[in-house]
């Protein structure tokens, strides 16, 4: 006992298990954030007067400290992963909305007009013209949201073992095993960089026309 990969039994998970938990807890919120952000951003891009107040609300929400956000939610969702995932969803949302709006707005007027002239309705134009052109901007937002989310999940360790790899941190303190905190920090950082790389790869696959 005492090695890098010897995970204390109270966590009831192997190293790989913790990685799985961590990814699940970090990525589900980003996915939900994206699903909510897409229609909201479309509204913000369409109705210009709506965007500044929307940006104001998201700035305020982003300022709310994660730990405060999490503990206030305990009242409704208890000591669960949901309690950690809700703030992460909000933070992702906040990063994604401006990214998508900027992306959709960057679609040139001529492209817009050409699509309309070809008989594209608003919905089809959105799906087949605006969204693909906005992909690089959306991915820039997705990368920030995903990497921050992976880093923030660990805070869940503070409300009991709800922090994925972050749970190793509390065990490092309880059992006086610094190696566990090394494990947590290194694994989390490597995970974030790997997923970031995957997103870059995915963006290249989705935008074969882009200049490399």
């Amino acid at each position, binding site marked *: 006992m005492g090695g890098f990969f010897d995970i204390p039994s109270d966590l009831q998970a192997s190293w790989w298990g913790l990685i799985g938990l961590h990814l699940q807890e970090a990525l589900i919120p980003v996915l939900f954030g994206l699903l909510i952000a897409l229609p909201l951003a479309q509204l913000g891009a369409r109705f210009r007067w709506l965007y500044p107040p929307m940006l104001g609300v998201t*700035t*305020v929400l*982003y*300022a*709310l*400290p*994660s*730990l*405060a*956000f999490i*503990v*206030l939610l*305990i*009242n409704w969702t208890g000591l669960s992963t949901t309690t950690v995932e809700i703030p992460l969803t909000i933070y992702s949302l906040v990063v994604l909305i401006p990214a998508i709006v900027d992306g959709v707005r960057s679609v040139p007027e001529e492209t817009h007009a050409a699509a309309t002239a070809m008989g594209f309705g608003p919905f089809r134009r959105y799906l087949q013209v605006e969204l693909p052109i906005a992909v690089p901007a959306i991915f820039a937002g997705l*990368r*920030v949201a995903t*990497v*921050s989310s*992976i*880093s*923030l999940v*660990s*805070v869940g*360790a*503070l*409300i009991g073992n709800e922090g994925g*790899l*972050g749970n190793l*941190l509390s065990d*490092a*303190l309880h059992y006086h095993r*610094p190696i566990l*905190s*090394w494990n*947590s*920090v290194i694994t*989390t*950082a490597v995970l*974030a*960089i790997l997923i*970031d790389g995957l997103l870059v790869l995915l963006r290249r696959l989705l935008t074969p026309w882009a200049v490399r």
Partner: protein
Amino acid sequence: MNLFHYADVFFSNNANWSGADGIPTRLTEHVQYSLMALAIAAVIALPLGLVTGHTGRGGNALALVATAGRALPSFGLLVLLTVLMGLGLTPVMIPLVALAVPPILVTTYEAVRSVDRALVDAARGMGMEPLRVLFQVELPVALPLILSGVRSAAVQIVSTATIAAYVSFGGLGRYIVDGLYQVDYNKVVGGAVLVAGLALVTLGLFWVAGRVFVSAGVRRQQR
């Protein structure tokens, strides 16, 4: 709503308003540590961002710093450094500064770089020295964006300084962490409300700073 009840019990308890664990003490600690971290980060990141933005070099290196900064888990770093160095100011300051440098550095670089080239050329044509171009043209025009970078750094510092209570650090996070251990939900909610309030005040201060320091002409152009 339950939360209001919890918060009310916490804030109407006189014992919470004085002494070493009183709200004034904890608030002062939190503000002090946050300001200290922000000042260190600004001293490191602002000059670097201004110079790289002015010369337009080093963008790739900065992008790398930004990604690395985000990927570094600040809570993990906090615990790791405390385990290694023992309780103290340094193991808390390092993650806070590491957290704040990338946003300031990257937005400052982007802000100075994206200043209209025509303005810079005009300034040069008028015979301005590079330093005067930087401080009298580029900096004032880039200021709104630079402030937004410092703002997001400040907000993240306030947020992460809260988590620092977990490693026996002072500040408002104490209420949340102690409250969770003592199963005293009044304390937890009271602490959360205070921290959220402080974060919002920080946001407000930067809004005011934008009004005061950004020149009226630049502000009008932004709309």
